[in-house]
């Protein structure tokens, strides 16, 4: 991909040099890596604050409240209730800032309690339905599967493996009874084997993810930085 303007080219070079500064950590910790890390944190926070203001606080709170204050004489009783609710919410939100003072930090518990109360109330029934009931329903499966009247051994085996995994892992995490007899120990060991398989899959997927990140960065350095620069100056 060729940079279309000098500013594009400058952007590509900035990104490429910062990437190389980050990679320099692989050799050893150094000032360039620390500088890049600080730039990343600063830019992310600054960008996040501006966008949160522009996308949330300004259009949802400031603009409607200013509109209410300017035209308060023509507003209905419902609008007054809305403004009072908005100001009370804003007041509760401002209490978050008390975290900066060790003596007044306890005030921040009020907005947290407010948010937790609403959040839990809204999500609890949906969480139970989504992650418990639906998942339980998905384990209520036949051990012998028949497809077009014939025994489907692959599907049957899959269901048996799934059910065995669910029961053995649940049993492994059941700590109320001492598992001293051979049957309990065997079931627990099967549960551990399932867990290890799960951890192995997670580790392999993590490797895949990290390689993907590195691969995309290398592709960027090759395509946009090296080839893009050469193309921009008509050298390729």
């Amino acid at each position, binding site marked *: 991909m060729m940079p279309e303007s000098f500013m594009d080219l400058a952007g590509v070079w900035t990104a490429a040099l910062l990437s190389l500064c980050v990679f320099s950590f692989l050799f050893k910790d150094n000032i360039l890596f620390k500088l890049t890390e600080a730039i990343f944190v600063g830019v992310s926070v600054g960008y996040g604050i501006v966008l949160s203001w522009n996308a949330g606080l300004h259009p949802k709170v400031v603009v409607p409240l200013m509109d209410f204050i300017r035209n308060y004489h023509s507003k209905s009783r419902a609008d007054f209730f809305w403004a009072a609710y908005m100001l009370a919410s804003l007041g509760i939100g401002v209490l978050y800032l008390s975290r900066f003072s060790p003596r007044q930090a306890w005030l921040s518990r009020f907005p947290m309690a407010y948010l937790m109360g609403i959040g839990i109330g809204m999500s609890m029934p949906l969480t139970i339905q989504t992650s418990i009931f639906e998942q339980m329903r998905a384990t209520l499966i036949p051990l012998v599967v028949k497809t077009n009247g014939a025994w489907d051994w692959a599907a049957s085996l899959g269901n048996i493996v799934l059910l065995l995994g669910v029961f053995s892992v649940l049993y492994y995490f059941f700590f109320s009874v001492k598992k001293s007899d051979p049957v309990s120990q065997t079931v627990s060991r099967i549960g551990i084997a399932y867990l290890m398989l799960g951890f192995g899959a997670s580790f392999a997927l993590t490797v895949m993810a990290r390689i993907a*990140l590195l691969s995309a960065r290398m592709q960027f350095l090759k395509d946009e930085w090296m080839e893009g620069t050469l193309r921009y100056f008509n050298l390729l």
Partner: protein
Amino acid sequence: MMTLLVQWFDRNYRRVIYVLVVLCVLVPAFLTVRLRIKPAGATQGLFNAVEGIPAARHAAITNLEAELAHTITNQEKLLSRLQRLRQHTNGVLLLSLDFDPSSAPELTPQAEIILRHAFMRGIAVVAVIVSTPVGAQLAQSIVDRAARETQGRYGVKLAGRDYVYLGFRPGYFNLIMQMGEDISRAFASDYAGNRLETLPMMQGIKNLHDIDLVAVITGFVGVPEAWMQVAKTKYNRPLGMGMTAVSVADYTPYLHSKQLVGLLPGMRGAAEYEMALDAPGAGTRGMLAQLASHVLIIVLIALGNVLFFLQRRNRS
């Protein structure tokens, strides 16, 4: 000499591994070899769901027409919904691009190929980001680029007519809940600042009931749960996801319970989707590097284990 070499390797083996991994990733970038990739069931599920959006919309219109013919109550409400459904006969895809630059290399190819697929089939796209303000501009550039790249062969794709990018608003769970009731209450305007009621495309879309498929591309924990709880459990909309490979193991049970129609695992998911659509792109390009690096890591793990057992034997 040999002892010196072993001592040097003991001190620098990390750097040797780094160099080998970089070579495994960098060398394939210069090669034009293309791997044969077969889409897995989870990828094919999401592909089929996007492919089936026009048919799903057609079925919804037919069902509603039949319901109207046999119902005398709620006629006005049903007629208004029928009018909305007829606005987009090829259906509507809601695409949530919930990621930031740190997971963009894995998730951008997924987002791009789903968008290209939707644009190729004439499906209207509502794009949104509900979890982080940092990814808002990145998401816009992905949507605009996909629209620009598709329009040559599949007609001009215009913002506001063929797709809408709503941008970011804070409070993601509440925001998704609001979208279920009324999208214009959650987002009064699109990312460019145009009021939603002025956009021709949004005339046919009021809430999640008017969406034929919700696709969520995310690298954040908590976001998939929020979409599943609201879009799937509460509003019963078909839901598909694309995720960073790290998160896939945690959400595969939702695929087996059929709460998700499909699940794309990282860059491989993008490559498989590209193969299903027969449109190779960034995902397919990255697979050779993945293959080389994975072979290297398997060899290194095996070598490490062999050395461990040899050392233990020598000690005993």
